[in-house]
């Protein structure tokens, strides 16, 4: 028994030492981190970017900060009115809906990312995630942003901080 315990300890130590020194996880990269490619199974075929694939900016590239039509309180009101689910214990963390806004202020290629309070991947209750996803998609227009007087396509996202299935904050 004593030998078995020693063996287990040695094995665990080896695993631990290996895990400490292991090479970091390698990502597969697109042009830019977070790029969203058109997926015909998911995306509206009528949604088009105006400046070609790979021409998108990030929302903060123009140093205007987060932009909302009617400013942020309008978005917060929308979710307060439309997101009407009961408290659901344990449904806490962050849910992000990321998308592209094109040169006409229309959005498309929505993608979902969900994590628990420890930033670990997590599947929120279907009702919560689909509701937040659909309300985000229902927003008809986003601000048109310009670079050198030309309207651009840009990535934007809404992140919902959730506690027991209720929205605590909408970011950014």
């Amino acid at each position, binding site marked *: 028994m004593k030998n078995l315990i020693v063996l287990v300890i040695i094995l665990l130590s080896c695993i631990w030492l290996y895990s400490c020194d292991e*090479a970091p996880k390698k990502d597969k990269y697109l042009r830019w981190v977070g790029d969203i490619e058109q997926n015909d199974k998911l995306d509206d075929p009528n949604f088009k970017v105006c400046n070609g694939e790979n021409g998108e900016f990030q929302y903060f590239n123009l140093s205007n900060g987060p932009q909302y039509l009617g400013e942020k309180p309008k978005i917060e009101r929308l979710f307060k009115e439309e997101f009407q689910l009961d408290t659901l214990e344990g449904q806490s963390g962050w849910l992000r809906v990321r998308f592209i806004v094109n040169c006409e202020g229309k959005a498309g290629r929505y993608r979902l990312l969900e994590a628990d309070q420890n930033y670990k991947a997590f599947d929120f209750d279907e009702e919560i995630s689909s509701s937040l996803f659909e309300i985000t998609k229902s927003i008809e227009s986003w601000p048109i942003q310009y670079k050198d007087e030309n309207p651009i396509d840009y990535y934007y996202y809404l*992140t919902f901080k959730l506690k027991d299935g209720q929205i*605590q904050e909408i970011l950014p």
Partner: protein
Amino acid sequence: MKNIITTLLLLLLTTLAATAQPNCLVYKNEGDMKKYEACEKCSELAGHYQFSKEFQEKLDEVLEIDSTFAWAYRAKSVAYLKSGDFIRWKELMDKAVQYDPENMLGYRGWCRFQFFRDYEGAIADLEELDKLVDYDIGYSVTGEYHLKIAMAICYRSIGEKEKAIKLIEEQIGNEKHFAGLYDYLHLGSLYLEVGEFERSIEALEKQINENDMAEVHYYLGMNYYRMSMVRSDYQRGLAEKEKALNEFIKAKELYTSGKRMRDGYSHPVDKVFLEEIELQIENLESL
């Protein structure tokens, strides 16, 4: 004005220090040749955008040389942070903190607050840093906030307002403290929340001298308005309502001229929006 210039200089220096490559000779002098080699490799990042495939791949090569090089994990994490990928960002920053807690805890704590409003997580990181070092824990990567002030805002957001006030007062009272862009605004807003109107006004007036903006006058207006509501002296109450209206009008003027709280990535705590200011003006004008 002098304070704003100091703050802006501090902001510039903090940003440069935060984004600049580390001094590789430090590792060489310490005899850590693996880290030195990894660090030297980082010079190849020049000219690559932090979101780009090339930038990320180059950092993977750096980490292949030394998988304990915290700076590279942090550099990789930035694009994930800014694109809102909280999962990958946290994985990378956890590695950075694991290998260099002294230099990475402050940054991770600040980002948890700024990007994710993870108040408890930010407090945990900043307090751990404070216990770990015997020197000043320093400023946010943006240079706008001392990390003790950021910690105070986090405490306030989880309802610990008295603790938040104490932290800000202690920090501002420290003779080595450089006033941040919004220190007195947050203090004034906090005093308003706990109903200490006179102290709130005093703090907000100091903020006007440091860095005037729409929010200062909005909260001044809220102070005068709330003071007027508890006055038994009708004339005095009326005068305070008038003061409140003037502050809200001034807030609108500054807001529309662009003098308001800003952040390139998120909406700062205590930011007010035009419709909130206009609502107060409308309310008071209808009385």
